[in-house]
């Protein structure tokens, strides 16, 4: 059984000119549990919206999203929030760490909305990622590569079944990018989580056995005047 399935998902936005701009039209997309798939796509192709729809942060205009046996698109917002906290780990290009919290607190706070805070697990994850000496550092006191590792720890802390990574190495130099990507994939494997990564960086994409062109999945229509 697939962990994730999208069928006939459409999402459009109103433009300032009063037209409807379709950004997503996904006839079908599937991802099996524990799979690691990289989607290649250019900027503005709708990759982030695609991930946000899967995470339940954006509701599609039509279509169905099934995640871990639940129809995300049929759930009310609070239930989608709960499902996201429990099932999904999200890694962003700009990490999106909370500046007022230490590395450890960032990870523990992420757990608070899911299964509950587990400082021991958060500490173990950060130590696993080589941040044992930086647990109480705030994000601005960490290097860019270290910040991304904190973000990885936060994404994996709730033992999610699916990790969504939106250009996770976009802000890293090639060395840090390679290392972060390796850690992300290893952690997903260790935790039994599937990984769906979107990127436009060929070097990142090249590291994945399964790569797909996002444009082949997404077939948005033309702009329609309202």
């Amino acid at each position: 059984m697939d962990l994730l399935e999208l069928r006939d998902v459409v999402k459009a936005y109103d433009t300032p000119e009063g037209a409807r701009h379709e950004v997503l039209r996904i006839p079908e997309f599937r991802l099996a549990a524990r799979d690691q798939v990289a989607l290649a796509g250019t900027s503005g192709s709708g990759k982030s919206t695609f991930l946000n729809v899967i995470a339940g942060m954006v509701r599609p205009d039509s279509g169905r999203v099934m995640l871990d046996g639940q129809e995300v698109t049929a759930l009310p917002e609070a239930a989608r929030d709960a499902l996201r906290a429990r099932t999904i780990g999200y890694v962003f290009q700009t990490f999106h760490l909370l500046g007022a919290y230490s590395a450890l607190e960032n990870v523990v706070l992420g757990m608070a909305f899911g299964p509950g805070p587990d400082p021991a697990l958060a500490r173990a994850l950060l130590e696993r990622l080589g941040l044992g000496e930086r647990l109480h550092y705030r994000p601005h006191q960490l290097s860019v590569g270290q910040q991304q590792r904190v973000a990885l720890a936060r994404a994996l802390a709730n033992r999610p079944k699916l990790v969504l990574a939106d250009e996770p190495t976009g802000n890293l130099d090639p060395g840090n990018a390679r290392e972060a990507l390796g850690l992300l994939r290893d952690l997903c494997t260790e935790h039994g989580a599937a990984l769906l990564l979107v990127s436009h960086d060929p070097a990142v994409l090249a590291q994945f056995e399964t790569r797909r062109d996002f444009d082949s999945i997404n077939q948005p229509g033309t702009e329609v005047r309202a």
Partner: protein
Amino acid sequence: MSVPLGTMFRIAWRSLRQHALSTWVTISSAALASGLVMAVFAVARQSSEAFEGGSLGFDAVLGARGSSTQLVLNSVFHLNTSPGNLPWKAYQEIAANPSVEEAYPYAVGDNYRSYRIVGTVPEFFTEHRMEGKPIFELPGDGRVFDPNLREAVIGSVVAHKTKLRIGSRFQPTHSLDAGSDHVHDEDYVVVGILAPTNSPADKVIWIPIEGMFRMDGHYLRGAGENFEAHAGEAIPDEHKEVSAVMLRLKDPAAGFMMQARYNKEGKEATLAWPIATEVQSIFQQISWVSRVLILVAYLVVVVAAGSLLASLYNTMNERRREFAILRSLGARRRTLLGVILLESGTIALGGALLGFVVYFGIMAGAAAVIRSETGVVLRTMVYHPAMLWTPLGMLVVGAIAGLVPAMKAYSTDVSRELSQSAA
């Protein structure tokens, strides 16, 4: 799965700490509002009680024909000018009235360092009772003055302010206030310092009434012509005058008959009765001050609420990214709403608690000024319902003020904020 309150409070607390300056300014503003409201209500009530208790258990005052308000202000509160004098005979007559339980003459006209000097009889201190208990106590070596000697008993405020002690000597100055430089030749010695009565009597210097009659430069006009007393010679009663006669009646109903006799049938004297009603009337005349103060206090509450709203609202823009991140981690909208309401509630609670410090500060300052000016002692530790409903009201105001920024947090568009902050 709902988020534990502890987590929400930790998020709220972290934000308050992060914006420590703004948080403290807002808490201080809420504390000022809360403390001011409590203090205004407490001062208003205690002033009212002190005014009503200022009559020292007397039911009526007999004085020269004129305004009963002026008579009460002059004889009970030792304020304002004397409306004039009555012949000694009027005092004797009313003292002999079978309806009168107690009658004590007052004679005024001098001061010492702006504290009014009142001439009276020793029985005023030894016989007068309020609800069966003596009012005046002379602690330590103090005693009542000898009616035939130049001796004085002073109120507690006078003692505190002038540093006069038992055995100290002073010379009275002519006139009721400090506006004259005519210092009398007579030397008076302090023989007693009254324990505080929490009444205007505390700022009075009491001397024998005979001493007032015989003071250098005082003329008695009881017989219609000026009479100056001479040492060693008795003063005929027809020349003596009193400024007022303080009365306690055997039966309060007697006041009706006496009032009719003096105020309606007679033309020479005014009977202010009942004093409590006169005091209420005076207090009502100045009650607008309380109302203005209460209005100002409420305005400060409104300003504090606005300050709370603005301080939280102003952080909303910089915190939209934080809210979007929390939402991406699974935080519900109502969790964010709760966090902001907790923040506003914490500020309001801090303000309400700190408000008690402000309250005690204001009360201490007000008590010092009021005691110095009127002799009335405010009690800072006395409960007033405002001390309960003001902090509770501040919490409600805080919650209401937090609603606007809370709704802004509630409506955070996650995907837009995350994509904008990524750009």
